[in-house]
């Protein structure tokens, strides 16, 4: 019995640093932030701090910029299925014997390792409305008025989605590569013997088999999409005219430019609620298309 207690104590001691870390750097700030949402904390030090009840939440309901950021964030989510889809296609291609396979795998994965800000600046050069190679190519192909890309309220978000897809595709590809090698050969052969064509093997064997991983990538990708910051901040700063403003940028701007910490916490809580709802939606939706052994 004594030995058991000593073992338990040792266990607690091992996890203690982690518990302290999580408490100090995560739980306390989380609760603090939740409390702040009901105050009018202003300035760096919280001068004239007052409890204001649900005032910040009421303000949120009529805050056009907040709702625009929500809409933008949902639109920005589009890059998640895109990067999962493209990641799957690239992984399928590179799962065969192709020339320079390892080099290609590394080059597709590389963007995931590069700083989001560096990626942003590189793409800014590519999408430069007048001197960028993309528009120069379009002009040489006869397009008279090529898009202004990041300078246009219409095209800025699609451009950001293209960049985000390119950036996150490599991670998805690596995960798919690992799981594609796990798909049992005999299942594919059985389907072929039954007369399935290549695309039918993919549709009815490979995709169901890898569906738990696809689900995992979609959930993680969605969460990350709602938390994105660096690349968009570097590329557009949320502009032009807030057309690429997403919730984390709005939280940052409200907290550290306007010093409205209370209101920023309210937006952060709404961000948490939205991520939670999307995750629950995906969780319930998975029953229809995810297959577990």
């Amino acid at each position, binding site marked *: 019995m004594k030995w058991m207690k000593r073992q338990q104590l040792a266990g607690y001691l091992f996890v203690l640093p982690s518990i302290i870390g999580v408490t100090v750097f995560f739980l306390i700030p989380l609760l603090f932030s939740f409390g702040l949402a009901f105050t009018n904390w*202003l*300035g*760096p*030090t919280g*001068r004239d701090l007052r409890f204001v009840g649900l005032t910040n939440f009421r*303000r949120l309901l009529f805050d056009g910029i907040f709702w625009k950021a929500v809409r933008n964030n949902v639109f920005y989510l589009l890059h998640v299925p895109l990067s999962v889809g493209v990641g799957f296609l690239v992984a399928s291609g590179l799962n065969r014997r192709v020339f320079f396979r390892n080099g290609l795998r590394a080059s597709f994965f590389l963007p995931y390792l590069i700083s989001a800000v560096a990626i942003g600046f590189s793409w800014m050069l590519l999408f*430069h*409305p*007048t*001197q960028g190679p993309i528009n120069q190519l379009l002009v040489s192909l006869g397009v008279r008025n090529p898009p*202004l*890309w*990041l*300078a*246009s*309220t219409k095209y800025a978000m699609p451009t950001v989605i293209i960049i985000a897809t390119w950036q996150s595709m490599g991670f998805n590809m690596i995960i798919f590569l690992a799981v594609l090698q796990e798909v049992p050969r005999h299942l594919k052969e059985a389907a072929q013997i039954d007369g399935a064509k290549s695309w039918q093997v993919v549709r009815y064997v490979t995709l169901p088999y890898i569906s738990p991983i696809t689900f995992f990538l979609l959930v993680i990708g969605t969460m990350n999409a709602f938390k994105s910051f660096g690349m968009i901040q570097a590329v557009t700063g949320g*502009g*032009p*005219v*807030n057309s690429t403003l997403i919730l984390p940028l709005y939280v940052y*701007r409200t907290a*550290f*430019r*306007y*010093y409205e910490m209370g209101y920023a916490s309210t937006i952060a809580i709404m961000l948490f609620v939205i991520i939670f709802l999307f995750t629950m939606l995906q969780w319930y939706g998975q029953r229809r298309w995810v297959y577990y052994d």
Partner: protein
Amino acid sequence: MRGRRSFLVSLAVLVISISLAGISYASEVVYLKFWGGVPAENGPQAAVEAWNAANPHIQVEYVRYVNNEDGNLRVNMAMQTGDDVDILMSHSANDYEQRVLSGFLLDLTDRVDDDYMAANIGSGALRWRVGDKYYALPTNINAIFIMLNEDAFASKGIAIPERLTVSQLRTLANELKSDEYEYAFALDAGNIHGIVQNAVIDTGFVKEDGTSNLDHPNVREGLETYYGLMHEDKVMPVLAIQKATNMAVEQMFLEGKIAMYQAGAWRLRMSNDLKQYPRSFKIAFVPYPHFDGYSGPAHHVEDAMSIVATTRFPDQAWEFIDWYAQEGMMALAPGGRVPAHASAPQAEARKLIVQAAEETYNLESLDRTYEAGDTKLLPTPPYQVLDYINQEIEKYFLGEQSIDATIANMVKFHNDFLNRQ
């Protein structure tokens, strides 16, 4: 044995005496940390070194922070955590006000009041007044002016203007229109909200009844004029293109591609550098345009130095600030900064700001801009309002909404903001 003991005692006494002497000497030297956003090599380091050489008992170390959102956030955190900051230079009135209201900066009332400011700095100092007090001493006149390519004027036979209204600016830009220049006029994209600030220069952002003044007729006139310059006359870069391409209008002006460039003294460092930016034309100057019947924008008085509330040495910090504003600033003149303090040799500093290339300027017109009368401080709204104004006028200049919708949206947002305060 006794000899050895007495030797050890003497040694101990000597060591203790030396240590105490050292401590007493060290205790007389005060070390101050001075944080500012000006790059050290543009003058602050030279100023600090000059001070340190002349004042061995008050040693100052210059710490440069980057004057952007992240840099200002870092400064605030440093002051909040009681980090080593004794003297702080603020560059934006909005950030400065937050610091005052948060209790980071000492009230300078005993040293600086309205009379002091009126006698030594001028009306521009009002920008740094919070309530009825000052918490900083501005040190630099950041002159604002339009730089003119004299060749462009000479080839059209147009005299260098001494003053311009907003509508005259448009007329002039059209007269200067030529195939030789890509644009007749340009300004830095980040300063586009200046049109609205200028429009309410005499009346302020808030009317007497406490509502938004953004529906003032000048706001409409100003925005329509600049829209016309961009889209109808095509003599000015379209804002969206300028922003998205990071169009270097200052460089284009120095390359002779733009005839008039609205900027300020901060661009003189570039125009002085004839090696990197060689040019054959002379640059003349004219003050920023003003609305007919209204004041013109006064030069910015900035780089405001404060004593940080947590410093242990407020008197020594003030001693340094007082010296820096009057004498130390001369080290910054070659970098384009003219001291704001009346006791400083301002005329000498004005020569220094163009010393590397004085032959290439119309100095008479430069002096005129510094001495321009009938000017007033540009009013600055809080960041929330400023950002919203930027967003709405950007939409208007993109052609995505009418002038009526632009003004209506700005007024509504501003009134909502005022009601919340």
